[in-house]
């Protein structure tokens, strides 16, 4: 059976699990989303937004849609996937099911907990109804699919004037011990006025069975609030991820999303920012380092609807072997959005002849008093620079790694959690196959 048919067939059964009242808004959203998905199905390469990324190979698997949590995983087995050197809140899921054992949630001063319980409890009804599925793109079929099957994920609500003393880590593990699994986590994050929060997110497969994750995150950033969001993507070759993150910002807020894509079979990052207020800052940073036949696609949008706002996009890509990358970055400046500063930078290095990058920067500007720029480069390693390092006795591999590290350095500099920066640089060194004898 085709995956689409299987999903359609199981929707009714899923609806009867009683997650939400049949007359609730969540139920209504899910039903509408399901109808949308049923009508159109999965995107294909004929869709403009999917021209360079084919889902064929990842959809052609008989995924289990509702995996049972078979084995409890032990902390020692997964500790390395946490940033464990620092104190943090943790919201952890195993095969889509919340793991209270691995998590550290709270309701004191803020809510860092589960979407499933937030949907069920009357106490949260108003908030859920107000925010859930309001900025997620309803015309995006994968987002619609996620909405239809919304069940579990992180629910984070930071009230106004709260500066969270420690970061939140959201981890999704898939054990897939006996089967291939499809996971559809859904996160809802609300950062109140003047609040400040740091979030680290990771999807990690623990098995060689196929995992397809179709994740959706909605983030609402209120006036003067600050959110720093870090996505670590370094999954197994058996895993694929389609991540859609929607950020809605109010005036004077600063939202930064940093995406580190170092592996998995296929990764698609839809990252969309919507401005609703003046003096907003949006930062989108990314470092992609992949090889083999891996594929990473960054599809970004900054929707400047209001005046006096700025956005900065900085994506670096390093592609080896037969890896392919896509950067499709769009900046939309509406007529009302005067005095917009929008910058977009995409630099790529292709290490081997078989590697490919498809870069498609798009600026659509309807206002006349704006500063917008975009730049895109595709190149190879600088041979002169390589020679310089080698004359100092540094072997070729290490010299290459140093240059690639330097290439991605201005993005790494944006990481505000030292332990995380350390981890990312170690992952890069590992990815580049070198041990430099110091923490880069």
């Amino acid at each position: 059976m085709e995956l689409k048919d299987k999903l359609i067939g199981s929707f009714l059964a899923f609806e009867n699990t009683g997650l939400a009242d049949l007359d609730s808004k969540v139920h209504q959203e899910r039903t509408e989303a399901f109808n949308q998905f049923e009508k159109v199905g999965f995107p294909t390469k004929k869709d403009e937004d999917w021209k360079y990324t084919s889902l064929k190979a990842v959809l052609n698997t008989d995924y289990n849609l509702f995996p049972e949590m078979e084995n409890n995983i032990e902390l020692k087995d997964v500790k390395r996937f946490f940033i464990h050197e620092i104190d943090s809140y943790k919201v952890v899921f195993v095969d889509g099911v919340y793991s209270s054992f691995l998590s550290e949630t709270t309701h004191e001063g803020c809510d860092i907990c589960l979407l499933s319980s937030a949907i069920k409890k009357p106490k949260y009804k108003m908030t859920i109804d107000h925010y859930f599925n309001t900025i997620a793109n309803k015309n995006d079929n994968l987002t619609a699919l996620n909405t239809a099957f919304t069940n579990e994920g992180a629910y984070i609500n930071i009230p106004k004037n709260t500066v969270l003393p420690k970061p939140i880590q959201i981890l999704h593990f898939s054990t897939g011990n006996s089967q291939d699994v499809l996971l559809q986590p859904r996160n809802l994050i609300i950062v109140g006025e003047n609040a400040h929060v740091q979030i680290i997110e990771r999807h990690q497969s623990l098995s060689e069975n196929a995992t397809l994750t179709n994740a959706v995150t909605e983030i609402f950033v209120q006036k003067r609030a600050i959110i720093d969001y870090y996505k670590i993507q370094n999954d197994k070759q058996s895993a694929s991820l389609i991540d859609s993150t929607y950020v809605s910002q109010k005036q004077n807020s600063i939202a930064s999303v940093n995406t580190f894509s170092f592996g998995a079979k296929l990764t698609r990052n839809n990252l969309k920012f919507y401005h609703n207020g003046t003096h907003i800052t949006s930062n989108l940073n990314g470092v992609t380092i992949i090889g083999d036949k891996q594929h990473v696609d960054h599809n970004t949008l900054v929707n400047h609807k209001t005046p006096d706002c700025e956005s900065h996009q900085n994506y670096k890509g390093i592609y080896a072997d037969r890896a392919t990358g896509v950067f499709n970055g769009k900046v939309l400046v509406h007529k009302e959005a005067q005095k917009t500063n929008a910058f977009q930078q995409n630099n790529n290095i292709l290490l081997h002849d078989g590697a490919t990058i498809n870069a498609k920067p798009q600026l659509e500007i309807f206002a006349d008093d704006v500063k917008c720029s975009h730049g895109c480069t595709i190149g190879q390693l600088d041979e002169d620079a390589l020679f310089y390092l080698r004359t100092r006795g540094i072997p070729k591999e290490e010299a290459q790694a140093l240059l690639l590290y330097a290439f991605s350095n201005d993005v790494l500099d944006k990481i505000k959690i030292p332990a995380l920066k350390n981890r990312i640089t170690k992952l890069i060194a590992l990815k580049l196959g070198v041990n430099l004898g110091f923490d880069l």
Partner: protein
Amino acid sequence: MLHIKNLHASVNDKEILRGINLEIKPGEVHAIMGPNGSGKSTLSAVIAGNGTYDVTQGDVVLDGESLLDFAPEERAHKGIFMSFQYPVEIPGVTTTNFIRTAINETRKARGLADLPANEMLKKIRATAELLDIDRKFLSRSLNEGFSGGEKKRNEIFQMAMLEPKLAILDETDSGLDIDALKIVANGVNKLKNKDNAILVITHYQRLLDYIIPDFVHVLHNGKIIKSGGKELAYELEEKGYDWLK
């Protein structure tokens, strides 16, 4: 120490070096001068192992061993150092970490263990003091945002740390004002001893006011057309290169 024998080298089938012969002994300072396009920088690049150039004939021998089959890093491990005209910027890697990597890679190649951190630190301090370099400078990213003078001083710092047998200074004076030039030259003079040798490659005589050569060679059209003592440099300064052609 270094013996260059009938060296021919070309790039894209264009011959640039056309039979160079040169012998450098320990404790000596040699200067190679010549007009633009004479092959000066090619010569230093070929000695250091830049793969852009094909050696078509002849040999470069260090202490009885041909260097031609060795990679640039292996030549560095054997004691060749080349100071660049345009050193590369490496954001995010401090000079200290960089030199530590370079030294330990060299030690590894020579079958030695890593230099313990405290000894490394001591060596860095002593060298910084010797060359009158502020240690804060060494914790900045390598060459990033450095002025021309700072980059060249950093090159000399690296040279001091790596203690090469033969140091090649390729157009080290280019882009330096006279104060920066003096500082760099002083550094080189402090590192000079009876066991190492220095090959200065320069277009102008002025660097040779501060680094006094034992021998001056004039390179023209890929060949050494005249050799002499330090007075040859002054003669060139006065008369230019044309009288030799």
